[in-house]
């Protein structure tokens, strides 16, 4: 019995090495407030979203999440696209618990695998912001400029 508890405790400690607490995204392709509101309302339908704080002036949406919920980056992007617009910037605020990251080496953080690029090898501890660089998470121009190879599913390119 003790062994099982220990295993569970280990498993939990492995998965809880970080937690996505917020996402800040900027949408493009719009100016009208009705368009912005359609994104705002679409993001609010996601079951893992706690709150959306929309800045109408900058087309930025600050999204907070329900505790311990799985935060699906692709679904967030899809909601913006289904409203008829695009994501040009996607920053996730993550609370790290001593995670070592190496440039160009995949690292699994909580439930996602990231491939950090353009970083110095380092240990991440505490609240940090990472920027997702995959297609559809940055502007087409920026995506082209970064010239990253297509990432396998569920692996996100990111930088700090």
């Amino acid at each position, binding site marked *: 019995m003790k062994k099982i508890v220990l295993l569970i405790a280990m498993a939990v400690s492995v998965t809880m090495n970080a937690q996505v607490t917020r996402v800040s995204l900027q949408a*493009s392709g719009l*100016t009208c407030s009705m368009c912005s509101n*359609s994104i705002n309302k*679409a993001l609010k339908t996601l079951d893992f979203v706690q709150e959306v704080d929309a800045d*109408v002036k900058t087309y930025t949406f600050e999204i907070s999440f329900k505790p311990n919920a799985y935060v699906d980056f692709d679904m967030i992007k899809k909601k913006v696209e289904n*409203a008829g617009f695009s994501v040009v910037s996607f920053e996730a605020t993550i609370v790290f618990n001593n995670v070592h990251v190496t440039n160009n080496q995949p690292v699994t953080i909580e439930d996602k695998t990231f491939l950090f690029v353009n970083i110095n090898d380092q240990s991440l501890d505490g609240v940090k912001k990472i920027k997702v660089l995959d297609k559809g998470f940055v502007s087409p121009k920026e995506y082209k400029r970064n010239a990253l190879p297509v990432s396998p599913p569920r692996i996100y390119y990111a930088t700090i």
Partner: protein
Amino acid sequence: MKQPFLIVLIFLSLRGKGQELFAVTEPASNIATGSIGFRVDHLIMNEINSSKINYHLIPEIIVGVSKKLMIQGNVFFSNRTTKFKAEGGSVYAKYRFLSNDAMQRHFRMAAFGRISRNNSDIHQEEINMYGHNSGIEVGLVATQLLRKVALSSSVSVLKAVDNGNNNKYLYGSKNSNAVNYTFSVGKLMLPKEYKDYRQTNINLMAEFLTQVNTGSGKYYMDIAPAVQMIFNSQSRIDIGYRAELSSTLLRTAPNGFFIRLEYNFFNVFK
């Protein structure tokens, strides 16, 4: 002819951001996936050579099927004949096939089509799939949004057929085809700066609407200026006036006011 160009010049000389939710034409953008809009159009047109007002009431439902596809359905009511009654309806679909987004701007293109059914008598050479003729219209629309200004242009081909209730198309099958050209410009006037979704938006727009009958070569050219208010980022009212600038086509009521009321429900379905 001087008037429309003056209005365009006034529009272009003003500084600010733009709107593309035009009052007469549709932009290349669609409503959000899963959203449903309800719209009621009122057309209050002056009948030429009479004191009669032709009132058209067109309730419409708009469904955002996917990010690329939007479908609309409506019913045409009017008092143009003896009494106010339902005369037909139409189904409209628009497919956005190109979308280049950037901060506060986009360029989009869409293909659209409308199938109309109307049971009223045919009384004019103008072919109008929005409450007068049975037939089909297909076309392309391109829309450029540049901050507060939106520009949109469309080309469509129309084919009129006999109306219902044995009301024949009167002008010969050779003259039952037409091409519509539209150019629309819209501009966000207020608010000067967005702060929250409850601010009322005021847009001014001007639309140029031209039809050329491919059989007879006859044409019309109209202008439709409108003012639009958007409330709570959810509902809108457009008030405008459509005026004939020039025409060689027989038309019974080309001039008049129009009022559009619209309310959008977001995320009705996934």
